[in-house]
């Protein structure tokens, strides 16, 4: 099981480690600076953190010694000839390439630029083919001024096949490492659009898309307007109907069991709060036919905790999970989400949690 955890917060990168049967704060890096994405690269052990200085832009840092020292690297940057000449606002997600693509990283940004590095973040280039799709003119911001890329999922069988999800710009896939892109998402429904445009693929708002590692055609989505599952790597989607709220941001997919995923429901979009002030995690074991709701160890009164899209994670066993909230609560589970233990109730707002 993973015994370390990166927690990207509004006030720095806070690392936790297992100690005496529980989680302890191990170190704090970049104190005071918002950290919008963090990554552990299991291929070489490197740690990455992306900072968003309020005044001075987004900066990428890498550590090759477990966080003791950090080196600033060039941040992803929009090409000077990119249409509209945008500037990077935020790196929203950072992911590794395939297991055999050592050194390859992907970064998704606000505005919705996709960037790739093949040298451990020493240099980046924008994947212009996605920026130049004609449908981009219909994309729009979801919670931000501009559309953004928050989910990047290379297929573990063939890392040239990558699925990307955009708020609000739908689900896109490439089969040639980014040279060409196809708009996917048949079956998604957007209630925030006029009825005749509810099924328009390029204006869907997938809040988060994740994949089952050992059944890579199975993908799960927490969408602005519900929960969806795909069994063909994101081409078509089926809406699932949990018994309670189906709004939220986060989803975690079991690494081996194709029918298992976790969500953290909230009252839908005009509220974005836990139902009745009680935080819960839901899980399905059968592909969304039936659902279980777990509350043990989570606040059940007066809770305003919202779990952002990157702030719920499951480790490679599918047994240990961790999640962090907008109000600075951090919890972990060692029984596949059925019960939770509070690690810290007083952290800064949490953007992302990564077990490793």
């Amino acid at each position: 099981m993973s015994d370390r955890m990166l927690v990207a917060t509004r006030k720095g990168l806070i690392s936790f480690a297992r100690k005496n049967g529980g989680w302890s704060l191990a170190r704090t890096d970049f104190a005071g600076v918002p950290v919008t994405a963090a990554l552990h690269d299991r291929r070489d052990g490197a740690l990455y953190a992306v900072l968003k200085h309020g005044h001075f832009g987004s900066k990428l840092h890498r550590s090759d010694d477990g966080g003791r020292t950090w080196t600033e690297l060039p941040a992803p940057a929009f090409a000077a000839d990119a249409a509209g000449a945008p500037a990077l606002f935020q790196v929203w997600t950072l992911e590794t390439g395939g297991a055999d693509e050592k050194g390859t990283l992907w970064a998704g940004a606000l505005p919705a630029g996709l960037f790739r590095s093949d040298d451990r973040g020493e240099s980046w280039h924008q994947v212009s083919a996605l920026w130049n799709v004609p449908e981009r003119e219909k994309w729009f911001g979801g919670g931000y001024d501009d559309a953004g890329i928050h989910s990047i999922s290379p297929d573990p069988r063939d890392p040239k096949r990558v699925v990307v999800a955009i708020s609000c710009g739908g689900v896109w896939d490439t089969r040639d490492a980014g040279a060409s892109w196809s708009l996917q998402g048949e079956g998604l429904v957007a209630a925030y659009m006029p009825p005749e445009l509810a099924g328009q693929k390029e204006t869907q708002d997938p809040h988060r898309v994740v994949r089952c590692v050992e059944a890579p055609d199975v993908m799960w989505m927490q969408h602005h307007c519900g929960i969806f599952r795909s069994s063909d790597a994101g081409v078509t989607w089926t809406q699932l109907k949990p018994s309670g709220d189906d709004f939220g941001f986060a989803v975690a997919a079991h690494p081996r069991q194709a029918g298992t995923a976790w969500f953290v429901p909230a009252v839908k979009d005009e509220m974005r709060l836990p139902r009745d002030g009680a935080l819960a995690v839901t899980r399905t074991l059968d592909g969304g036919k039936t659902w279980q709701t777990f509350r043990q160890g989570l606040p059940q009164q007066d809770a305003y905790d919202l779990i952002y899209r990157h702030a719920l994670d499951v480790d490679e066993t599918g047994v240990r999970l961790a999640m962090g909230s907008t109000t600075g609560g951090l919890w972990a589970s060692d029984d596949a989400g059925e019960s939770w233990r509070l690690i810290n109730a007083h952290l800064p707002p949490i953007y992302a949690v990564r077990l490793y």
Partner: protein
Amino acid sequence: MAQLHFTSWLREVVPDGPLQADGGTVGDALGAVFRERPHVRGYVVDEQGRLRKHVCIFADGRRLPQQAALGHAIGKDSTLYVMQALSGG
């Protein structure tokens, strides 16, 4: 040469000043600093060369309008301050 002071918030990337630079405009003077210290560029301007939204520049005691700051003409004895705008939080 113009004197350039950078906010203490940037002390990790640019030393306590003032730095001296030649240039007929704020942008020219900053460009001279960036040539000497390439790492500073990305903290002051974005990848398209525009002054970052929440960086403000004072020239000879006057805060410069954001859009016009880089093109603002300066003299040989001008004093510039590159500061964090409180709009950035």
